[in-house]
């Protein structure tokens, strides 16, 4: 369990950048989307999500913007920035290489 938590912790920035790249999204929706798409594997607590979002925003990788809904409620939507897009390309490549290498080692030999 602790190992899984560490794995998630190490990949949180990539997960958030990927999700925000697909569409501008707000905090609550991010938690739900990650849980739905990963079929319950990624269950983020708010205490993990918001510090990470603020860290990415401070680093200039995403940008938060308040939007008022027709109901009058406000939500802070996150958009990816140019810098964030460049960082995402690098991270995607790193993940691809990492997963390919892991599969080569972890998968049982076929012969």
């Amino acid at each position, binding site marked *: 369990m602790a190992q899984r938590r560490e794995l998630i912790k190490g990949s949180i920035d990539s997960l958030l950048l990927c999700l925000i790249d697909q569409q501008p999204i707000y905090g609550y929706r991010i938690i739900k989307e990650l849980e739905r798409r990963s079929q319950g594997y990624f269950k983020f*607590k*708010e*205490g993990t999500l*918001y510090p990470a979002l*603020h860290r990415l925003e401070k680093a200039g990788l995403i940008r*938060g913007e308040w939007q008022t809904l027709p109901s009058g*409620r406000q939500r802070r939507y996150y958009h990816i920035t140019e810098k964030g897009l460049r960082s995402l390309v690098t991270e995607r490549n790193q993940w691809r290489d990492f997963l390919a290498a892991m599969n080569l080692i972890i998968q049982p030999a076929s012969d």
Partner: protein
Amino acid sequence: MVTVLSRYLDSVRENLRLDCSLESEVIHELETHIEDELQELREAGLSEEEAANTCLKLLGSAKVVARQICEAHSQGSWSQALLAAMPHILFGLLFALNWWRGIGWLLGMLVLVLSMAVYGWWRGKPAWLFPWLGYSLLPVVAAGLLLLYLPQGWSWVAILIYIPLALWLLYSITVKTIKRDWLYTSLMLLPLPAIAGWFLAVEPINKLPQHWLQRMQEFAPWIGLTFLALGLTVATFIRVRKRWLRVSVLVVSGLITLTMVAYYTNGKLSLPAFLILIVVMLLLLLSPAFLERTLKHTGQQSAT
């Protein structure tokens, strides 16, 4: 909003230590999140109380959330670091380049320091404000010291009126900065031990002005160097993220600058005076933490 959740947000706010505009934005974002969460839990069939408790559990510790958000924002940019270090650098240059005897330079510096302090205070007390604020309080201390030179009989009247007023002003500003973050109060008070050290080394009391002007002239390059070291400390403080590192930077800098004073004055600052200054420095830099705790405790008691 349900009371437990309002209390949760209050606790986050108390521990955030961010400037006002950023703080209200973070709290508002968490508030909208909680509203969404509560709505979904109620739609799933939970009672108001059950929904609030489940939501609280999902949110995690208010202190941890606040600390992590605060850490994400606490690292200032290089330009903020430079702006925060600027009053120390300017004071350093004032002495290093021997401009301190020019009344024009001193007045210009005073106007700049006061303007920056007022501007920063008005802009929601950003981190770069506090060194400027510290220097803006120096004229209050300097005026108090000048009272010692008033003719006999007048000085005690002035002291009786001036000292309580000055102490009240210093206390009220200190309390206001502690409410922002006690570490910024320590940042504000940072140059005081070094100034006190140089003051004792120059020995202006019961001596002719010519004597201490000569001493000042003699020490000016080293006084300048001490302020430049303080500038470097402040820039480092603004750039580091972890709180414990910030505390260490302040304490180590206090020790280094006092050692510099003792070293460059060639024994004119006696060992007992040096040791007393170190204790005073530690008290000055760390007592805001205790004062913050006391203020919070008093605030909670009056709220209940």
